[in-house]
């Protein structure tokens, strides 16, 4: 339990570190120069940046957070959002990410079983080719190819397609790990014993092998869940979903520095929460994890 708390503490420290790092990075930006360059911000806009970030004021670095908790608009233009809007957009992205995670687990299970079946046949090359193909395809490419047919239709189809698109490579990645673990586990004595006692392959797999393989999957789910949330940025952009990824990209493009600071910290908090949830689930489902901590 103590080790778990230490890990929780280490992860939580990440949030204020990210908050301060992103604040001071934004606050140190040279947002104005004398030359007449269309990419530069005007002196008025630069002054409002300084106001938004509280630069030159005592405890000014708390300004974005004060605005967030008072429900004021973050940012300098009409695109600046309130804390409530930010959370609403975040919940949209997390929803797409959760659907994608469920889909990724389905892909993973399917690919692991297929990889295991292909192992000794002529199709064994597919076990290497499919992951390479999946890893080499950025999320935005299948999104681009599907976008023309789904964007106009609406009715949650863009959200579901976004979840489908971002679930592919994490699913194949988890499937590769699961497939390797399955291969190791299926060669063990207890599997041979169970099979020799007349249990079918499916029953051996479900009752004996999968419970031993799932903890290996949980180790990888944390980083994958993170990648799913970050990966949804591109899909949201292509499918025009008005969620957190779209907001973040626009905030960066429009130099909405206060929005970038708050959104980066909120996103880091989500990642920490995901890490903690995965850790707790691992403790619940894997007795070996509990024993190693007591």
């Amino acid at each position, binding site marked *: 339990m103590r080790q778990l708390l230490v890990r929780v503490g*280490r*992860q939580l420290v*990440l949030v204020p*570190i*990210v908050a301060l790092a*992103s604040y001071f*990075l*934004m606050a*140190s*930006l*040279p*947002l*104005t*120069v004398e*030359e007449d*360059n269309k*990419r*530069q911000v005007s002196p008025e806009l630069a002054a409002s940046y300084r106001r938004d970030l509280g630069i030159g004021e005592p405890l000014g670095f708390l300004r974005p957070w004060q605005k967030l908790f008072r429900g004021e608009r973050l940012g300098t233009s009409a695109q600046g959002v309130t804390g409530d809007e930010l959370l609403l957009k975040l919940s949209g992205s997390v929803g797409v990410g959760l659907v994608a995670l469920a889909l990724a687990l389905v892909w993973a299970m399917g690919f692991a079983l297929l990889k295991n079946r292909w192992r000794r046949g002529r199709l064994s090359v597919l076990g*290497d080719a499919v*992951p*390479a*193909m999946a*890893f*080499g*395809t*950025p*999320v*935005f*490419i299948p999104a*681009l*190819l599907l*976008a*023309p047919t789904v*964007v106009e239709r609406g009715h949650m189809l863009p959200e579901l397609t976004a979840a489908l698109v971002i679930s592919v490579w994490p699913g194949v990645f988890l499937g590769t790990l699961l497939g390797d673990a399955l291969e190791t586990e299926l060669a063990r004595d207890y599997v041979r014993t169970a099979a020799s006692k007349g249990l079918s392959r499916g029953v051996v797999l479900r009752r004996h092998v999968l419970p031993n393989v799932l903890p290996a999957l949980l180790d990888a789910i944390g980083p994958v869940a*993170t*990648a799913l*949330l*970050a990966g949804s*940025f*591109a899909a949201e*952009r*292509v499918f025009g979903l008005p969620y957190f990824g779209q907001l*973040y*990209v626009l905030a*960066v*493009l429009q*130099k909405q520095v206060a929005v*970038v600071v708050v959104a*980066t910290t909120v*996103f*880091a908090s989500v*990642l920490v929460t995901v*890490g903690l949830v995965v850790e707790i689930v691992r403790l619940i489902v894997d007795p070996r994890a509990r024993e190693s901590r007591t």
Partner: protein
Amino acid sequence: MRRIPAQAWVGLALLGGLGVLSLLAGRVFPEVLAGTCPLGNDPTHPDRTVCELAFGGLWISLAIGLSAGALSTGIGLVVAAVARLAGGTLERWVMRLADAFFALPDVLVVMVLQLAGQSLLDAGSGAGLGPFGLMVVSLALVGWAGPARMFRNRLDTLEGQEFVAASRALGGSGAHVLRVHLWPALRPFVLAVFLSRLPAAILAESTVSFFGIARMEPMSLGRYLGTSYAALIYEGGSRVVIPAWLLLVLLVLGASLASQALATRTRQA
């Protein structure tokens, strides 16, 4: 010397072939592509053919991947070596820092670094970095943590072997052991890690460029795809996207095949 696996040769040949092809088609003889491209001109860049843009982008993406991969691998190697030499509390803190960096998503951090770097460039204080250098530095700053963790673990394993203990017993200093005994054993692993960073850097750059945040000219594959997606959506022109996608897949496939084969071989050694 152990035989290099066939899979690694296939990956390296694919990478080398794409590099030569992009050099010849995109840089040395671009006029050939301009005259013979069967896919026609790009709707959003009417003066350029799809082939010119795809092969030109391939050259830039490959250059960014190689530079950022090499820089992040180098930083990771130095961090891991310093941490192992220092040992104790410093090593623990350095590795925790690496873990904290590793937990952050690449694309998000690169976007923030691009915003900061572009503001510096606009203000004329970019330390001589152009958009290309800025992207390479951003990707390296994000990507060093994974290699550092892998190198530190590998060094830890190697240091447990008998020949290292013997060298220490004979009075070899930490730096001597690292230079004479550990580095030769680590070299193939360094190559495998470098090759594994290559696709990660290329994909992160593609995604950030796709958003329109990077300002690279000539365009990388990601930026090209990003500027063409309006044409794809509104004109149904998949011919614009598919060649660049295939080149990107082949690039990442080559690096992944070589990296996986070399990493497996070094684990077995």
